[in-house]
């Protein structure tokens, strides 16, 4: 009998080669593991079967309209709306966040009121509201107080569907961004302010070089989520007749009655864009996830920060 031969625990049969300490540990698959796979495969197979065999999907129509001029124009407008509303919303959100953190109760109260109102009412309602604002204020006069210089503005002409869309999306987004930015500031410890103060830094220097770089790990991933949300949210402005992606699809199926295929066209484009955005988003999230990779996050957050 060779020295490397051992017997199995039951002692029934000698096994060649492996010592007990080298043996793999195996967790056997149980019936419900297979059952889960079977169920998932059945569901997917069913879905694939019906999409392929159900003629009503009209896949040829989907493909023929997928890159139609008006759809691509709508797609472009969707992207423009996202970028513009997100950009303006972030700027206004920053202003609101700073107001919200003010030590002057009237200022922070005002910002609080804004945030409560715009987060507490549906965006769709807000959009329709801004489109119809002329009913409230038909004529506004822009001018310098206490002088004769003023220009009357016809609100009805000013508030085109596109303006209403940008105003509505921006004002709504600002409320959410304000809360995100405020959360970022809240994540910076009191000691950082004190350390900056003890070095004799002015309020602005402290904010610019010490505090803001440290808010980024909390703000940037959340902002990425907002961008993706905004991209889909722009579909709401279709109700105002802005020719963005969904509205472009709608105006085609209003003529052709091919409702489902065109909704599929729009959905596929939304899906492609959100997927495209979610790649950088998840990269950013991994960079900035503070608990697991704190050092790397801090290091990159600040490559351009100070010195």
């Amino acid at each position, binding site marked *: 009998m060779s020295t490397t031969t051992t017997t199995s625990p039951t002692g029934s049969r000698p096994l060649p080669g492996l010592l007990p300490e080298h043996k793999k540990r195996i967790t056997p698959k149980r019936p419900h593991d297979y059952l889960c796979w079977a169920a998932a495969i059945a569901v997917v197979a069913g879905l694939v079967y019906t999409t392929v065999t159900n003629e009503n999907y009209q896949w040829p129509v989907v493909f023929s309209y997928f890159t139609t001029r008006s759809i691509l124009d709508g797609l472009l407008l969707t992207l423009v709306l996202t970028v513009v509303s997100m950009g303006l919303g972030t700027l206004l959100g920053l202003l609101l966040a700073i107001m919200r953190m003010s030590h002057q109760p009237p200022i922070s109260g005002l910002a609080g009121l804004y945030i409560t109102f715009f987060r507490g009412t549906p965006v769709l309602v807000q959009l329709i509201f801004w489109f119809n604002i002329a009913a409230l204020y038909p004529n506004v006069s822009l001018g310098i107080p206490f002088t004769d210089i003023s220009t009357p503005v016809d609100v009805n002409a000013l508030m085109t569907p596109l303006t209403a869309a940008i105003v509505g999306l921006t004002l709504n987004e600002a409320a959410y961004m304000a809360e995100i930015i405020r959360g970022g500031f809240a994540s910076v*410890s009191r*000691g*950082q302010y*004190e*350390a*900056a*103060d*003890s*070095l*004799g*830094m*002015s*309020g602005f*220097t402290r904010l610019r*070089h*010490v505090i803001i*770089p*440290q808010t980024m790990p909390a703000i940037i991933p959340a902002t990425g989520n907002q961008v993706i949300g905004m991209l889909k949210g722009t579909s709401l402005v279709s109700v105002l007749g802005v020719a963005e992606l969904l509205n472009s699809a709608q105006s085609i199926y209003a003529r052709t009655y091919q409702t489902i295929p065109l909704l599929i066209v729009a959905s596929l484009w939304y899906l492609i864009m959100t997927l495209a955005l979610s790649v950088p988003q998840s990269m950013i999230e991994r960079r900035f996830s503070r608990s697991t990779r*704190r*050092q790397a996050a*801090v*290091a990159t*957050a*600040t490559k351009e*920060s*100070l*010195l």
Partner: protein
Amino acid sequence: MKADGTIVARKLCKSFGSHQVLREIDLTVSAGEISCIIGPSGSGKSTLLRCVNGLETVDRGVLRVNGEDFGYVEKDNAYHAVRPQRLTEQRARIGMVFQQFNLFPNMTAESNVMSGPVLVKKTDRRTARERAQELLAQVGLSGCGHKYPAQLSGGQQQRVAIARALAMDPSIMLFDEPTSALDPELVGEVLGVMRDLAHNGMTMLLVTHEMGFARDVADEVLFMDDGIAVERGDAREVLANPKEKRTQEFLERVL
């Protein structure tokens, strides 16, 4: 601009809401003197220290730092708060070291040390960097300048924090329990740096639980309890033969 490295407090009072934290505290630290504030937690030691560089405002009493009224100017029958800009000037001459280090995590050790000179004093970068390297060497951390705080041990972080405060060429250094957040084996390296500073004639006011350090290095000790300056005097004298009963009880517990 006067910066004679002295601290004088007379009948200093401070309340947080209805809770009186400092009750008529008197304190004198002469130039080059090392003064330790000791006492149980919640006795107001840290608050007193934080008043000296304006992290807390004083309610009543006289506070003169570097030979001038701190944070306020005396006019007619009142003290008027100075403009923020003036306050930052006064603060820049006082170095502060915190219990939790409070290094800027977004900057390397070297940038932390450079931050004061570059951002506040507008020193040019090259000069500031050379000075930062000198200071890091002084606290025994040459070669660590490129590291971020998260890559340093607690003791190393605290030594960077000391270098950062020194970079402003302060005439007074304040230490708020500088070794309390450190693992026991790291306390020595920080105390060593502080000891060197003391020997070089820096005016130092520190809140500490390191009685050994107070005995070896301090000129004066102030024992505080419940917002009152219970006993003040020569460091070795107070620690060896405390006159007040409360001081005796406290020292018995900590020694």
